[in-house]
C-alpha cells in the first residue's frame, strides 16, 4: 500500500495505490470512487477492505480523494464537474503507475453516479460497478435534508445549523449552492449512457429506482443486476460507535466475485 499525492501542483489529489498480490496475465487496474460528504467517512474502511480483496485477485487498485474532500487539496466539496476531472486524472495515474491495460471503476452512491456519468468518455473501461448508485440528484438532496434532522442533532444544534449556515446542510461540510445545483442535475435514468464492456448494478437497499435504472440500462448494455440485503454503511448515527463502522461483507464479496468473473 502506497499513499501519495498526484495531479497538478496547485490541486493535488491524495491517493493510495495497492499493488496486486497475485499476478494476472493482462495487467488490470480498478479505481474506487468513494461516495461523498459524510458518506465518505462512513465507507472509508469498507473501501480499504475492498482494495485489499481486489489485490488478492490480481487487480492494481487506486483509492483517491476528490478535490476538496478527504486529504486532497481544496477547501471544500467542489462539485461533480470537478470530480469528473479528478476521476479521469486518477484513472490516468493508475494506468501509468500500473501499466494497466484494462481499467475498471467501482463507485458507491454518488461515486457510482459520478462513474456512470463519466464512463461514456472513457472508451477503455472494461468493468463498471455501480453500487447502490444515486440515480436521481433531487432525491439525494432530499435525503440530505432528512439527514439534517438526523438523530444526533439536538434541537438547539439544528436551529444553529439553520440560522447561521446558508451552506450548512447539517452534514458538517460547507456545500456551496453551485455544488447543490450540480448534484441536482444528476439524472442517470434519463441519460442511460453509462457504458463499459460489462456493468454490475448492485442494489442492497431494495431500491425500485435502482432496479428500474438497471433494467432500462440493460436494454442496450451488458448489465448484471444483483440484489442483496445489507445495512447501509453510509448512514451515520453515532460516530464513536464501532457498530456503525461495520464492513458490508456481502456487498464486497459480490463485487470481488463479479470482478473476478467467479460470481454465480
Amino acid at each position: 500500500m502506497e499513499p501519495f499525492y498526484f495531479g497538478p501542483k496547485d490541486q493535488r489529489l491524495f491517493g493510495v495505490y495497492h499493488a496486486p498480490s497475485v499476478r494476472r496475465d493482462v495487467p488490470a487496474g480498478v479505481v474506487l470512487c468513494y461516495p461523498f460528504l459524510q458518506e465518505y467517512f462512513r465507507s472509508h474502511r469498507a473501501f480499504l477492505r475492498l482494495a485489499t480483496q481486489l489485490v488478492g485477485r490480481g487487480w492494481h487498485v487506486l483509492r483517491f480523494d476528490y478535490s476538496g474532500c478527504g486529504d486532497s487539496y481544496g477547501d471544500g466539496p467542489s462539485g461533480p464537474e470537478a470530480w469528473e476531472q479528478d476521476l479521469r486524472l486518477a484513472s490516468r495515474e493508475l494506468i501509468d503507475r500500473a501499466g494497466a491495460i484494462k481499467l475498471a471503476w467501482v463507485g458507491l452512491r454518488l461515486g457510482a453516479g459520478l462513474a456512470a456519468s463519466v464512463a461514456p468518455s472513457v472508451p477503455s473501461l472494461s468493468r463498471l460497478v455501480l453500487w447502490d448508485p444515486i440515480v436521481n440528484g433531487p432525491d439525494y438532496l432530499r435525503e440530505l435534508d432528512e439527514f439534517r434532522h438526523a438523530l444526533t442533532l439536538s434541537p438547539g444544534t439544528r436551529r444553529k445549523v439553520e440560522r447561521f449556515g446558508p451552506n450548512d446542510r447539517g452534514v458538517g461540510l460547507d456545500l456551496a449552492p453551485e455544488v447543490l445545483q450540480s448534484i441536482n442535475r444528476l439524472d442517470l435514468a434519463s441519460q442511460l449512457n453509462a457504458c463499459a464492456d460489462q456493468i454490475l448494478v448492485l442494489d442492497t437497499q431494495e431500491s425500485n429506482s435502482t432496479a428500474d435504472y438497471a433494467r432500462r440500462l440493460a436494454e442496450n448494455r451488458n448489465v448484471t443486476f444483483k440484489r442483496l440485503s445489507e445495512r447501509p454503511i453510509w448512514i451515520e448515527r453515532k460516530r464513536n460507535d464501532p457498530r456503525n463502522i461495520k464492513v458490508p461483507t456481502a456487498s464486497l464479496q459480490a463485487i470481488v466475485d463479479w470482478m473476478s468473473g467467479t460470481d454465480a
Partner: protein
Amino acid sequence: MREHTVVFGDDSPLVGIITEPDGGYQENVPVFLFLNAGLDHRAGPHRLYVTLARKLAAVGVASLRFDFSGIGDSPASRSLDAPEDRGVAEARQAMNFLARSVRSEAFVPLGLCSGANVGFALAATDRRVVGAVLINPTTMPAEHTKEQSEEALKRAQAHHHESRLRDWKSWTRVLTGRSNAMSVYRSTVRLAGHAFRGQSAPRRKDVDLGLLPELGTRGVELLAVFSEGDLGLELLTTHVGSFENLAPLNRFQLEIVRDTDHILTPLHDQQRMEALVLNWTAQRLSAGLARSANGSMPVDALR
C-alpha cells in the same frame, strides 16, 4: 502550504500527512499532532483536522495528522496493549519520527474525544509536549469513583433530555395537533438512546485530571473545548465543582460551546473552533514556548 505523505512506526506502518508552511519549519515553533477522533480517519470529523492543519500552516505552524494502527489507512498492529495505551505509544513514535526527520523538539497534540484523551495522557507523560488542544475529552481524576462517573453520565443524559423537551418546535406540533406529547416523549428517549449509545461511564484511571496543576507548573498550555452537556464537561464539573476553581490554573483555558454536538457538526462551531485554536496558538503557546525552549518564540509568525 505543502503536504506530503509519510509512513513511519516502530511496530507497524502508520500512515500520515505532513502539512508544511510555505516558509518551511520554523525554529522553536512546535509541530501540531492531530490524533484520531474515535474511529474516524485522520481527516477528522467533518474534515476538521485537514482544515485546521492548513490554517495553522498559513500562520507558520507545521503539523502531522496520522492514523493510529487499525484506523484509516494504517494497518492493525499486533500489539496487545489497550487502544488508549497504544495510541499514546504511537503518538510518541510520531514525535520521534518528527524529531529525526525535521528536528522538531516541541509538540502540541490536538484531539477530539478519544484523541483528546490520548493527547492529555501524552502531555502528562512526555516533556516534549508544550501544549495540547483537547476537544470534548472524557478525562477524569484518578480518585474518581465509579458512582461519580455514572452520575456525570446521568447529568449529560439529563441535559440532552432537557434540551429536547425545551424544543418549541416539538410543542408547536403538539399544540397544532400534528403530534402528541407521548410521541415527543418517546422521541426524546429514543434520541437520547442514540446520542449516548456505546458511551458508558469512563473507567480508566490513567488520564488523570488531577494532573492539571502539575502540567501547569511544567509550563504546558492546555486549551479544553467542550460542547455544553457533553459527558467530558460533566466529568470535569464533578472534579472541580465550580469552574471558578479552575481560575488558579492560568495555563488552562476552558471554552464551552453551546447548542452543538460532540463532533461540532454546525459549520459555525467549526469556524469558531478554528479561530479558538489559532488565537490560542498565537497568544498562549508562544509564551509557554519562550519559557520552556531555548531562545524566543517568533510570535509574529503565529499572529
